[in-house]
């Protein structure tokens, strides 16, 4: 999930909405959710990083924002299909040094979603750092906000557990890592615009998932595949970038694919992605290798959102059309966006997740 997931933006959005939305003098041109805002005083993202796992799961408080993003494509015993999302965002409202207790400048935001063909449920949580209501623990990784949790079951984080609950639903899944972690972009340095904005970006695309989902009175045992994204930065978007369309795909042949398009205000969108073979080799994609074309638009929450896409990677002989499990997968959270499970067919078939922000 990505990267760019707009989450970050969410977070920022959050900030923007809550914090600055209010003060009208705030500049308006900060990209989606304020992710294009200046990052003075925060650590900067530089090329050639050294990113290892599971250290990458730790928090990076010197950077302004980061997120832990889990998506899973699941199926119950009876064949009912589900998508599950679990996300934790962190945002610092001022750079180091870190202040203690309630004065701590770290703000946390959690989002969860459950989607099936007929229903899309979501919830959000807010918390401040410094008191233990939300945060990250290491060396045995644990991320939480309130009662929502993503934690490693061993120090190497080969096995993880994720859970969340809100009015009317809850879920818990255990995740087993079946392949290597993947550094996106150049060794984890993921460029987001021609002006050089970038983030550090690592993914765990090889995760088997199993667990249970409860909706109302009904509980489903589910299995499937999951994907975790870790990303941190201080200014991941260019100022004129309005949103993004991001895909994580589990191909039926075992390969994985991550693609995104960052939309600029005036065309010349920025494309990026990584093709990952089933044995764990990552092939970064150059912008010119990627073709992403929106097909059908669907009206949701009063906006037109392209829920079907045509994706083409000539160099990898991939030409697929994606369709949503539920076109109404709208996260009407503080910062609203579309995020839901998809299926695709064409030269390849499989399942995945799509996130679209800024619509």
């Amino acid at each position, binding site marked *: 999930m990505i990267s760019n997931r707009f989450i970050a933006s969410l977070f920022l959005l959050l900030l923007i909405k809550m914090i600055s939305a209010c003060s*009208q003098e705030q500049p308006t041109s900060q990209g989606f959710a304020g992710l294009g805002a200046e990052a003075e005083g925060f650590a900067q993202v530089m090329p050639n990083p050294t990113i290892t796992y599971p250290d990458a799961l730790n928090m990076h408080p010197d950077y302004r924002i980061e997120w832990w993003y889990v998506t899973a494509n699941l199926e119950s015993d009876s064949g009912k299909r589900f998508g599950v999302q679990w996300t934790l965002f962190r945002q610092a409202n001022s750079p180091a040094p870190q202040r203690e207790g*309630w004065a701590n400048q770290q703000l946390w935001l959690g989002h969860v979603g459950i989607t099936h063909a007929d229903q899309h449920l979501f919830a959000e949580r*807010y918390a401040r750092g410094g008191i233990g209501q939300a945060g990250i623990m290491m060396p045995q990784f644990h991320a939480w906000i309130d009662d929502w949790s993503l934690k490693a079951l061993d120090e190497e984080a080969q096995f993880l557990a994720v859970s969340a609950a809100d009015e009317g639903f809850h879920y818990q899944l255990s995740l087993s890592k079946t392949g290597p972690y993947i550094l996106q972009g150049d060794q984890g340095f993921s460029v987001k615009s021609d002006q050089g904005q970038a983030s550090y970006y690592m993914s765990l695309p090889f995760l088997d998932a199993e667990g249970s989902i409860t909706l109302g009175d009904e509980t489903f045992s589910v299995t499937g595949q999951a994907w975790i994204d870790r990303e941190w930065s201080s200014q991941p978007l260019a100022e004129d970038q309005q949103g993004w369309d991001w895909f994580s795909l589990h191909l039926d042949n075992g390969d994985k694919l991550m693609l995104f398009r960052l939309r600029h205000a005036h065309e010349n969108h920025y494309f990026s992605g990584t093709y990952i073979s089933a044995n764990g080799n990552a092939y970064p994609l150059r912008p010119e290798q990627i073709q992403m074309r929106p097909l059908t638009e669907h009206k949701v929450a009063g906006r037109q959102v392209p829920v079907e896409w045509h994706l083409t990677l000539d160099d990898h002989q991939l030409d697929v059309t994606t369709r949503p499990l539920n076109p109404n997968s709208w996260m009407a959270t503080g910062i609203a966006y579309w995020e839901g499970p998809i299926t695709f067919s064409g030269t390849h078939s499989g399942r995945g997740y799509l996130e679209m922000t800024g619509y």
Partner: protein
Amino acid sequence: MLFQRSSVWVLHALLSHWWKHPVQLSTLMVGLVAATALWSGVQALNQQARMSYDQAAQRFNSLNQAQLTGINQQPIAQQDYVQLRRLGWPVTPLVEGQLTTDLSPQYSFTLVGIEPMTLLNTESAQAPATGLPTNLSLNQFLTPPWEVWLSARTKEAVLQAFEGVDTGFPLNPLGERPNLRVSNALADYEMMTDIYLAQYWLEMDQQHSRLLLLQDTFAQPLPNELSSRLRVIIPQSDHDISRLTESFHLNLTALSLLAYLVGLLMVYSAMHLAMNQRRSLYRVITACGIDQRHLMACVLTELLLLSALIALPGLLLGYWIASWLLPDLSTSLAGLYGAQVDANLSLTSRWWFQGLMMAWAGTLLASLLPLLRLLNNKPNNRPDANIIHFSGSVGSRLMTLALISATAALAVAYTGQSLLSGFLLLGLIFTTAALLLPLLVDKVLALGQALFSSALGQWLWADARLQISHLAIALIALLLALSTSIGVGGMVEGFRHTFVGWLDQRLAAEVYVRADSQQQADELYAWLDQHEQVKAILPSARADRVLHQTPIELRGIQVHATYVDHWPLLSRMDDAWSQIEDQGAVMINEQLARQLALNLGDSIPLSTDTSFSVVAIYSDYGNPKGQVMMSIETLYQHWPHAEQGSFALRVDPDQLDSLKDQLNEHFSLGDNQVLDQLAVKDFSIRLFERTFAATRALNLLVLGVASIALLSSLLTLSSLRLTQMAPVWASGVSRQQLMFFELMRLLFIALITAMLAIPLGLLISYCLVTVINVRAFGWALPWQIFPQQWFNLTLSALISALLAAIIPLLKLRFSSPGKLLKGFRDDQ
């Protein structure tokens, strides 16, 4: 086109009537000003109070807010808050307290620290509004130097407080001045800031005052380890503050409605007369080619214009009345219900608009009958055409209406349960009385007439009967005002007697001492035990419970003669005290008994495993909460964590002062830790007085308005009277004799009205204590009667009549024989 150029002339002609009849104009003005002022004044009070309640609710002080508090008012540890959040509880912390500045003048601030991330970002409909602006910058709120939200006046006080302070409030922990941001939504001396700064200033590191539960459908039980420290309070709508205070406001509204009606009676009598006297004018106008519809439109325009002009001073007077009563009102609401009302009156445009609408509605209502008559255009040439003979068909019609009204009152009395039906009952009683009054006065006068056979005597009584039709409206106003005075006065006076007696019983011990900690309590006990002048030391303890989702208070006392002999019990079992002492029985206050419909012998399930038998019910005036009393041993046995309460000390009154001095010397106790009986009584009685100050003031105003109504009726009448008296004068009765007869007749009629007002007032007072009070406050009062009050009111009715008669009498005294002759001639 309905409104034409000629309309201006028609309006001019219509309005000129009022300049020619200043008495009618003044009657109209006084009536309408009084109606508008009293109604809108009370509405201003109600509106101000409701605005304050809303603010309080926004500031999370509403009893209607689901919340978690520490057992025994202990602060809640930050860890417990985090633990609850991590268990999924939708709670947000608050830090609250008082801050004072050291400088002179000294200011005291109420500080509320909030956590905006959890408070402002909840989807739940239960999320309370904070009173913070929608354009709050979260970034600035949470980042040094932080922000403090306050009113403009508070800002000035804080700016002063900055001077000469090096550390601590109002500087932030970094020694900087926080940004002061003004919000009109905050009351004076109230401040809102981030929880971090609030903890620092109030020295509540890692502690919270309480946690708001943002979703009151959240039904999980508290985990065991937390349930020993925290309790959950889920509100029951019956007990929210606005409902409690609503009764209080309903009382005021009812009284103001009565004043409004009395004012309208005056408007009616002025309108009635004016419409009649203008009939010839209407004929002239229609003769000039103005059709009926056009004329009607002009009359309506005239009424609306006139009443709008008069309503303005009425509203200003209403504003003044409200500002005059507001301090008493806010004190009594704070004392009775803990509701905070801002003592600065601020009014909305809606209030002005509503006031104007009420003035218009009142004028139209009062003019309805005269206007209808005008439409029917009944010929009415005789000056006495509007004299009603109550012995005829009008009388039987009134009697029928009165019977219907009385039957309805009986039906409401038997079936009604709500406070509103209580007021409906009062309204019906008043209506019945108003309908019957002219008939009864007429009957009494007819009786008088039968007793006199002389021509002059016959004329005197017959003439008095004729006057009733002119004075009926004013007399009804007087009757309503007098009986309300007797009713309300009796209720208040009865309450005062009961209350003072109750205080004497309840505060039987001479001194009450409260310890700050268990250790201090132990030391105090040991110290007091050694003092001979202390005849008894009676410890107490308290705990809080939620029963049927209602917070109630448990009190443990040491059973002792002080209580057994004095405690004010409404009903009890014979061996109540011994059952309380030995068998773990309890007594409950009247409020709780009514709320839960409990009687002697019932049991009350205060804990999951034990029920307690109710052996007595006691009166507990002024307490909005349910309360259960038991022996202190029983309390500690079931609630080992109960909080140590105050010690009641029996001391020889002569040695009271020396004991207090010694106590202060040894323990340096604060002012609020040692209370003597007299101080508590004094405070309670002052609170009581202020509670009814507004009621009494309104009552007096209504009486004043009724006197003015009588005066204006007599003034109007005096011009008619001249023609009626002229023949009598011509027959040889001197003016002095005539004046004497006039005065006696009027005083007699006022006396009859006052005599009728007494039984009516008693009935009203009975309804107030046994119906209205029970439904409004939850307690009943004994019905007491105060003949002294009746005497005073009768006297005031006679004085009103006397004063009202002076001008007409002087008019008669100084009428020249020529004028009287002219009157005699006109009458022919």
